[in-house]
């Protein structure tokens, strides 16, 4: 599969990736390497210029990079997370009790229960990021796509996100694509890492990473 924006140069060249259900795939690479683009292609938000993408999962959730920047509506944390639940709930009328419960649970998982009814814009950047993580979780996704979810999130919250992802991955068989420059707490259970720099330059177990690339954020070598 290859891709270019409009008539621009190829941003991704001959990418071939196969991800099994329930896999946890860490994706790293330099700025502009095409990580976000790859995720958008997987999610069907962009069409490949050549080649094809097949998706077996039906329930998808996407946490975009810098998600907070796109929202200036007077939305509360609970309303935001409820929006994530919308595809799982009935389409018309108010939210059912079971769905409200799922929303509350997702908010608890990211530790925002005391801020649940505050406006998103009054929270810190890291708290906003956590609210978006809760929004993605509320959809009970089969495929969870996270683009730099821990940017601006403190170590403690990174730890609890890692624990949560590990649980989703192990117990619920959720497939996770996780883009980051720094895997931190997630590192201990990453089984597969993909380095993207205009093409896939590495795809394998973290232990097999060539020495020069060992810090995934410095994959320029």
């Amino acid at each position, binding site marked *: 599969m290859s891709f270019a924006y409009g008539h621009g140069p190829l941003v991704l060249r001959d990418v071939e990736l196969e991800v099994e259900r329930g896999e946890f795939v860490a994706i790293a690479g330099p700025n502009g390497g095409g990580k976000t683009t790859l995720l958008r292609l997987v999610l069907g*938000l962009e069409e490949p210029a050549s080649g094809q993408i097949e998706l077996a999962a039906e329930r998808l*959730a996407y946490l975009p990079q810098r998600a907070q920047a796109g*929202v200036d509506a*007077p939305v509360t944390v609970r*309303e935001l997370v409820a929006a994530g639940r919308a*595809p799982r709930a009935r389409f018309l009328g*108010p*939210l059912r009790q079971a769905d409200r419960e799922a929303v509350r649970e997702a908010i608890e998982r990211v530790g925002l229960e005391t801020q649940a*009814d505050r406006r998103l814009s009054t929270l810190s950047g890291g708290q906003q990021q956590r609210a978006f993580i809760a929004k*993605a979780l509320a959809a009970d996704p089969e495929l969870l796509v996270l683009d730099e979810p821990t940017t601006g999130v403190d170590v403690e919250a990174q730890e609890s996100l890692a624990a949560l992802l590990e649980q989703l991955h192990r117990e619920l068989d959720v497939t996770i694509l996780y883009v980051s420059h720094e895997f931190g707490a997630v590192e201990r259970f990453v089984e597969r890492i993909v380095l993207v720099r205009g093409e896939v330059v590495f795809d394998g177990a973290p232990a097999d990473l060539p020495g020069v690339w060992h810090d995934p954020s410095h994959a320029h070598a």
Partner: protein
Amino acid sequence: MLDLEFMRLAFGAGIVVGLLAPAVGFFLVQRRLSLIGDGIGHVAFAGVALGYLLNLPLVLTALAVSIAGALSIETLRARRTAAGDQALALVFYTGIAGGVVLVSAAGALNVNLFQFLFGSILTVTRSDLAVIAGLGAAALLLIALLYRLLVAVVVDEEGARVAGLPVSLLNALTAALAAVTIALSMRVVGILLIAALMVLPVIAAARIAWSMRSTMVLAMGIGLASVLTGITVAYYADLPPGGTTVLVAAAAVLVAEPIGALRR
């Protein structure tokens, strides 16, 4: 004042439009499409002109042409063939130019176009009110039923699309609702001012409110209060009701600013 039939009809139409315009405007403002109402208003003008030319009911031709215009703005925007504001500009100017050409072709440049440009709520008839109330209630019901889905699109359009919500359909529906609102509101505040009634109450409400839902409810309250105050003041002070209504809504924004600052 209320013993006069035309005033009762004016208040009836005003109540519907005062509630509906901010309810639809709410979703436009949150999607940063505040000016779409203006664009559709200009298209509605072409619709009115077409009605004169074909000798058809003006509200119906305005409604049909507005919906067509709203859907083309939405299509151009969604396909990204043009940036949002360029799509708007294209439809905006085509509408007003088309209107001028059609009106002069109909030999109607001297007719009461002024009524449509600036509103003429005091000339609302019983059958007008029936149309306004019927379509207005249907539009409000639709918004109430689809509220959660519309909010999901507003807070994260791509996320909603990825999750499988019918985003394009919901966006087209919002555009169509805006067109209906404008066609119904022409008589109340006029084509040139209708967008103000869709946008200003929402801006005022967002300054004070603490959530999406409270913003929506408050905006509808401010819209309603603006229309009722506007008509009443206009009646006693002998002012144009449309302009007076919009000035009241603008004042609401000015008042909301310090209240919002105090709350924070």
